């Protein structure tokens, strides 16, 4: 048994009080002469013995009562381990939250610095018999120092050098890692220590509660955080307004919780030059959007949007990078009407790129933003690989199905790489019979021009189409028999089940064709890589034009990575996100291949604290204790290890003793009452 507040044991001295009173009371017994002891002699021996026994019992009850109260105050705990600061051999996983919300400053130093100090303090409660792992709480979780080490000094040194990351928290990942480590451990004592600001966002990654099985794992949560207000630049979006070639930037400012949100100035920079200013005045938990027009230029546009810094400055700045040129549309196959619609005369800011059938490859796709596959019969494996990489690298694909399509080849080779859709075959040719588009998703962006029209496609005749099973895809327009006409297979792939071919329909001849095609391509390209921005911590594939010679990745702090010469064949560079937010350039000696922005994930900007009860319910298999940053680490660890709190049990025992004392004492007082008359004598 250990005591959390051993100073209270001094109160145990009060147990001497009943003893002293007892001894003093005994000494005060008076001698009284009495005429005859005849009646008393026999009974007194028995009664006195019983009385003294009761007296001793009462004395013991009183002493124990005071002792138990003193012990309860001292915080007794029961453990199977060693006493006081000792512990059983332990495997411990310390999860140190290094997400960017820990960068906020509270009283001069950042939460992370305080958390790292706490972690160093925590290491004092381990020794050479223990295995200690220190994991980061941000995603992806990594280790501080050597993993599973008893080299505590090494861990301390690593922690002293540690910096807070710019990533987000996902406690589910390090907790699962911790669980795996502890379940594999043979040490009798297993602990998880979480040192975090306990942001709600960090606990939302649990798809299911963590199952500890039969493992007896103790969890100590050291809550470092205080809920506070915060504002951020949440998002930067781009669009090309219809009928113009200019980019328009839409900046979203967001504020979490109360606080003075008035008059915070936001500034937009383009390539380090101030473009515009705005005053962000969003109130509590609200969003404000501001639009800025970007200048027409060639190549890439990049820059940043900043707002006056608060206590968490990292999310007050957001970077952007966007290709300023017209969207390039690669067109393959039987696509006369498509090419015509995309010609300079057609407008809409597109630059068609004619790609011959059979010559689809990484190089031909490198310059395209959107690829249109119009009634292409089939694709070679290399072509399928190139299309897959193109989509993976941020490109979009619009597929027209038609008479030339090899259904089997599509179903086997191409479609599985793009989504869950399958082609079932062509609809029967009905001679003069035709279908119309009866139902379409009026609110969809591609039908933006027809919002007010009753049914612009009512007179458009569709004689034949390919029957498809949309699978996970989303049907946004259907023929009169209910078959899908336009399917959004994924956010970057769209399929039209009939081609721009007058043999199958007269759609290409109608006035609706051009606006629907333009809006579809704008929609796909805007969802593609118009805005080249990624979150820190992501695994990303940077699209690029073919490159000759060595390619380097250059960030805010200079060149951070060299890629070997790919001989002009590389289209996407897989990169594990650097730690630093900012503008990154993928370049060779001669040209800039790609520009992209890395930003923090603003889901971390919401500093709302997690409900500890929900955390406990997610970790209900664990013996979890939560303490605050102000609590002493040693006491917290002792409490965790020494387990069962005996104070309440002691208080119950004290209460039982109090009842016993009351019963014994009342029996004394009952006999001690004032004497009454003796009946036999009075009767005389």
């Amino acid at each position, binding site marked *: 048994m250990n005591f959390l507040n051993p100073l209270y044991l001094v109160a145990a001295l009060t147990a001497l009080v009943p003893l002293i009173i007892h001894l003093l*009371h005994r000494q*005060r*017994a*008076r*001698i*009284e*002469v*009495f*005429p*005859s*002891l*005849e*009646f*008393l*002699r026999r*009974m*007194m021996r028995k*009664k*006195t013995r*019983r*009385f003294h026994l009761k007296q001793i019992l009462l004395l013991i009850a009183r002493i124990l009562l005071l002792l138990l109260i003193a012990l309860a105050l001292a915080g007794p705990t029961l453990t199977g381990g060693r006493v006081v600061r000792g512990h059983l051999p332990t495997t411990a996983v310390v999860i140190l939250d290094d997400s960017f919300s820990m960068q906020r400053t509270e009283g001069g130093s950042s939460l992370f610095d305080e958390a790292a100090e706490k972690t160093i303090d925590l290491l004092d409660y381990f020794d050479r018999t223990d295995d200690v792992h220190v994991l980061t709480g941000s995603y992806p979780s990594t280790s501080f120092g050597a993993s599973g080490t008893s080299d505590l000094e090494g861990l301390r040194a690593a922690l002293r050098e540690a910096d807070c990351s710019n990533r987000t928290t996902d406690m589910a990942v390090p907790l699962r890692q911790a669980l795996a480590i502890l379940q594999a451990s043979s040490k009798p004592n297993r602990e998880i220590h979480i040192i975090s600001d306990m942001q709600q966002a960090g606990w939302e990654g649990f798809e299911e509660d963590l199952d500890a099985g039969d493992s007896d794992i103790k969890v100590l949560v050291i809550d470092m955080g205080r809920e506070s207000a915060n504002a951020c630049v949440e998002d930067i979006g781009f669009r090309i307004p219809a009928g113009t070639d200019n980019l328009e930037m839409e900046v979203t400012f967001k504020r979490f919780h109360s606080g003075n949100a008035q008059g915070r100035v936001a500034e937009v920079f383009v390539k380090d030059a101030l473009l515009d200013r705005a005053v962000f005045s969003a109130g509590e938990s609200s969003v404000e959007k501001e639009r800025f027009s970007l200048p027409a230029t060639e190549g890439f546009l990049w820059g940043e949007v900043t707002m006056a810094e608060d206590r968490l400055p990292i999310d007050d700045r957001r970077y952007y990078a966007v290709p300023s040129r017209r969207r390039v549309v690669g067109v393959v196959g039987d696509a006369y009407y498509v090419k015509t619609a995309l010609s300079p005369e057609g407008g809409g800011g597109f630059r068609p790129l004619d790609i011959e059938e059979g010559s689809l490859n990484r190089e031909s796709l490198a310059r395209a933003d959107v690829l249109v596959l119009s009634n292409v019969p089939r694709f070679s494996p290399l072509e399928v690989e190139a299309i897959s990489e193109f989509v993976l690298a941020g490109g979009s694909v619009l597929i027209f199905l038609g008479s030339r399509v090899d259904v089997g080849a599509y179903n086997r080779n191409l479609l599985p790489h793009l989504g869950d859709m399958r082609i079932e075959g062509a609809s029967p040719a009905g001679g003069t019979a035709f279908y119309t588009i009866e139902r379409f998703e009026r609110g969809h962006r591609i039908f933006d021009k027809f919002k007010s029209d009753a049914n612009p496609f009512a007179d458009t005749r569709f004689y034949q189409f390919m029957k498809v099973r949309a699978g996970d895809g989303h049907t946004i327009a259907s023929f009169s028999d209910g078959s899908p006409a336009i399917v959004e297979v994924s956010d970057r792939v769209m399929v039209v089940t009939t081609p721009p071919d007058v043999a199958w329909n007269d759609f290409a001849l109608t006035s609706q064709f051009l606006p629907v095609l333009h809006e579809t391509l704008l929609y796909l390209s805007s969802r593609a890589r118009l805005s080249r921005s990624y979150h820190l911590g992501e695994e990303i594939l940077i699209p690029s034009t073919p490159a000759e010679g060595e390619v380097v990745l250059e960030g805010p702090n200079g060149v951070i990575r060299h890629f070997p010469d790919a001989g002009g064949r590389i289209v996407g560079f897989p990169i594990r996100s650097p730690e630093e937010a900012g503008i990154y350039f993928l370049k060779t000696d001669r040209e800039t291949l790609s520009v992209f922005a890395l930003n923090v994930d603003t889901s971390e900007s919401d500093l709302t604290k997690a409900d500890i009860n929900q955390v406990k319910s997610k970790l209900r298999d664990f013996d979890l204790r939560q303490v605050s940053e102000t609590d002493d680490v040693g006491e917290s660890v002792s409490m965790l290890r020494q387990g069962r709190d005996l104070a309440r049990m002691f208080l119950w025992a004290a209460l039982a003793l109090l009842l016993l004392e009351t019963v014994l004492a009342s029996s*004394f007082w009952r*006999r*001690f*009452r*004032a*004497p*009454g*008359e*003796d*009946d*036999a*004598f009075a009767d*005389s």
Partner: protein
Amino acid sequence: MTEDYRKYLDPAVISRLKGMDIKARLVVEGFVSGLHRGPYKGFSVEFAEHRQYMPGDPIRYLDWKVYGKTDRFYIKEYEEETNLRAYLIMDGSGSMGYSSNGMTKLEYGSYLAASLAYLMLKQQDSVGLLIFDTKLRKYIPPRSVKKHLHVILKELSDLGARKETDLGESLHELAQRVRRRGLIILISDLLDDEEKVIRGLKLFRHRKHEVIVFHVLDPYEVLFPFEHEVILKDMETGEEIPAVPWEVRKEYREKVSAWINRYRTVLRQSGIDYVPVRTSTTFDVALFSYLEKRQRLG
């Protein structure tokens, strides 16, 4: 203003007075003044005076002649004329020296004996005094002359409690000594072997004596009202035992009560008047008991 002598029936008042003769006289005067309206008045054959009939008066003393003449009931009162020999037997053992309220049992018994002597001599009876502890300590033969009272009172005022008790043996000795039939008045706390005491008292009855026993006890002996743990020391033997009064009080009282009841039952069965008194009991209780007995004796 006439003094109310009845206050002198209270032992607490009497204990504050000096002089045994004063005490005895005041007790008896107090008692007699209370009797003026009561049924106890004279047992003599010589007419003294008439007084108005009061409810409770025996009708045999009604003067029918006066009634015939006046239509009023009058009682004839007589001067006493007696040859009753009374023996006051006083227990002078150590236990009689116990007091919880300022008056020892011995003092109470002495005042009672003095009062009885005063009353009896006033009524022309012969009174003697015997004092004993383990054995007969003093014997004053009964006489009826008034100056005999001073002899008895002097002995009583000089009386001090001492030694242990051997009441049974003493009663045997006394029974041998008292040969002429008379009234035996025993004043004692009876703290001795119960059987021997009863045998001794029966012996008096066997010798045709009338017997009254005034069983004098202190209230503490009966109620045992000690409030704190005490060490009790026997007055006669000096033996000490620790006592927890509240633990034994109930049982003690039961035992004392049973002890008294046994005396009461056995003695009454033997034709002995048994009068338990406490040192807080007013003297009229004892005097009434005597008068009742005296009345029965005629």
